[in-house]
Structure formats: structure tokens, C-alpha cells
């Protein structure tokens, strides 16, 4: 299982690439920076897009209606959500 730091770094890259963010590098995104509103400025449709990107990246299943908005609070909360769903290391 990748460590939480690696998951956070990968999620930052996915945010920039999947959502086609202009003028922002993955390293510019803080672990605890709010993703919505005044933070990174994402919206709920971006969250749906990210959901699919995370499914593809990590081979996990995420159903939109089972994911609370708090999951998408920040890169840290998103990374914790992903890591909970990754299979344990063999």
C-alpha cells in the first residue's frame, strides 16, 4: 500500500491533470488547503470528475451518493478516503 504522503502527491497531480487546471502546479496545492470555494475553487462537478479519476488510478470503487462532501474537503481528507479503500499490502 502506498504511504499517505505518496497518495497525497498523486492526488494533487490528478487534480491538476483531470480538472485541466491552468496556472497551478501540483506542488502549489497544500495538503489541507480547502478544495472548494475560496480554497482551490473547485465545484461539486469537479468532485464527480475526481471520483472517476481516483477510481481509475487506484482501482477502487466509489459511488457518488456514498461520498460525503467532507471527503473532498482537502487533499488530506481525500487521501485518507482513498487509503482506507486500498487493499492491505500483501
Amino acid at each position, binding site marked *: 500500500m502506498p504511504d499517505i504522503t505518496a497518495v497525497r502527491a498523486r492526488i494533487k497531480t490528478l487534480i491538476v491533470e483531470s480538472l485541466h487546471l491552468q496556472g497551478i502546479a501540483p506542488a502549489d496545492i497544500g495538503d489541507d488547503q480547502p478544495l472548494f470555494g475560496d480554497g482551490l475553487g473547485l465545484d461539486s462537478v469537479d468532485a464527480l470528475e475526481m471520483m472517476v479519476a481516483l477510481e481509475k488510478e487506484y482501482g477502487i*470503487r466509489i459511488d457518488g451518493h456514498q461520498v460525503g462532501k467532507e471527503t473532498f474537503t482537502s487533499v488530506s481528507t481525500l487521501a485518507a478516503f482513498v487509503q482506507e479503500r486500498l487493499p492491505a499490502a500483501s
Partner: protein
Amino acid sequence: MSAPRPVALVTGGSRGIGRAVVQTLAAQGWIVAFTWREREEEARRLAEEIGGAGRPFRFDLRDRARAGDLVREVEEQVGPIEGLVNNAGVRRDGLLATLADDGWDELIDANLGGVFRCCRAAVPRMLHRRRGSIVNVSSMTAVHGLAGQAAYGAAKAGILGLTRSLAREVGSRGVRVNAVIPGFVPTEMVADIPPERVKALRSAEALPAGVTTGGVAGAVAFLLSDAAASITGQTLVVDAGLLA
């Protein structure tokens, strides 16, 4: 090298309007995943008829857990869904005053909830790819009341509201959502309507030939295609002029 053929998912594709939609889309170059509920043999024959372009899947609108799995299976086994046609429906008539709660719930859940669940499953993937088109098949009874169809008509009218709001939700990512209202089409689904009532229903049609399954399918295929790239949140009435 030619571009890969786009994939459409059509619910309720083994007979009636859905069958014509499957045939039309296949003829226009789509690979069509389509669902059946009861008639596996008919679905299999339709898949054979349209050659390598058809892939049947079992699906019951009333199974709440199934829509998510269906979309995943189609994407894994056929390819990314670019077009979704929510055509499957369940019709059962009864005067409102005699309708039990269970009967109401079942009709609303199957006809409106089923569309909701299929959209919910497919939309995130379309958003992610920034490409997709959805066509929801409503009914004349959504806009022109028919005695005995309060529940069915409410569900089908609900589909029009869902269509408009969803179009607003996903338009910014290049995903379009439209609806089609078929007029009176002589299919198995309406075979139990008495001939005199059919005659009365059809008396207002402007076109003597009436509405065919192929005519409705053509409208669905148009809205699904890039020819309708500027159209979203709309309802196209295919009724041979009945409401004109």
C-alpha cells in the same frame, strides 16, 4: 486508421421503440450495449441481427443496485459510454382513486427512479471524459393527460424536469441531456389499449402515417449525435403533429 466506434447504452432495447433505437444507432456506426429484462432470446437475436455492433445485458429498472453495476460492466466489456438512452419503462394503468401506495411507488420508482439511477451511474464518467450525451424517453402522457395514467404520467413528466436540471448541472463539461416524447406508437407496450381509444388518440395527428418506432429512433439518434451539439435540456416531441 479509423476512429473507434462510439459506445451507446440503451435501456429496454430488446423490443418496441428501444429495439428501433438499437438498430438505428448500430446503422449509424455506434456499438450498442442494450438491456433486456424478460426476453433473453429476443435480445440475443437482435444482437446477432446487427452483427458485431450489439451487446445485450440483463437489467431490471426496479433493481436499485443494478444501474451502477450495469454501467461498470458496459464500460469494462464494451467501452466508454458516450451515449445513454434511458428508454426502459413499465406501464400499468389504473384510476388514481384506486391506486395503492405500493403501485404508485413502484411506477414512480421504475420509470423515474430508474432514469435517475442510470444517469447517476453514467454521468461522472461522462464528466471525466468531458463528452457524453443522454436522451431520456418520456411519454405523451407527460404533457397530455390520459385517464388511468396518473402515476405513469407523473413519472414521465418527472423525467422532463430531471432532464432540464441535469442539463444545467453537466453542460459546463460538454455533456448534453435531452428528452424525447414519442406520440402514439403501435408497440407491444400499448397493445392493450382498446382500438376505439387508439382511434380517438390518433384523430388529432396531422400526418396520416402516424408515428413509427423508426421515426422516434431517428429523433433519439439525432439528439445523441454531434449533429445536436448545440442542443441540451430540450424535449423533442415526435407525435406526427398530434400536439400541433
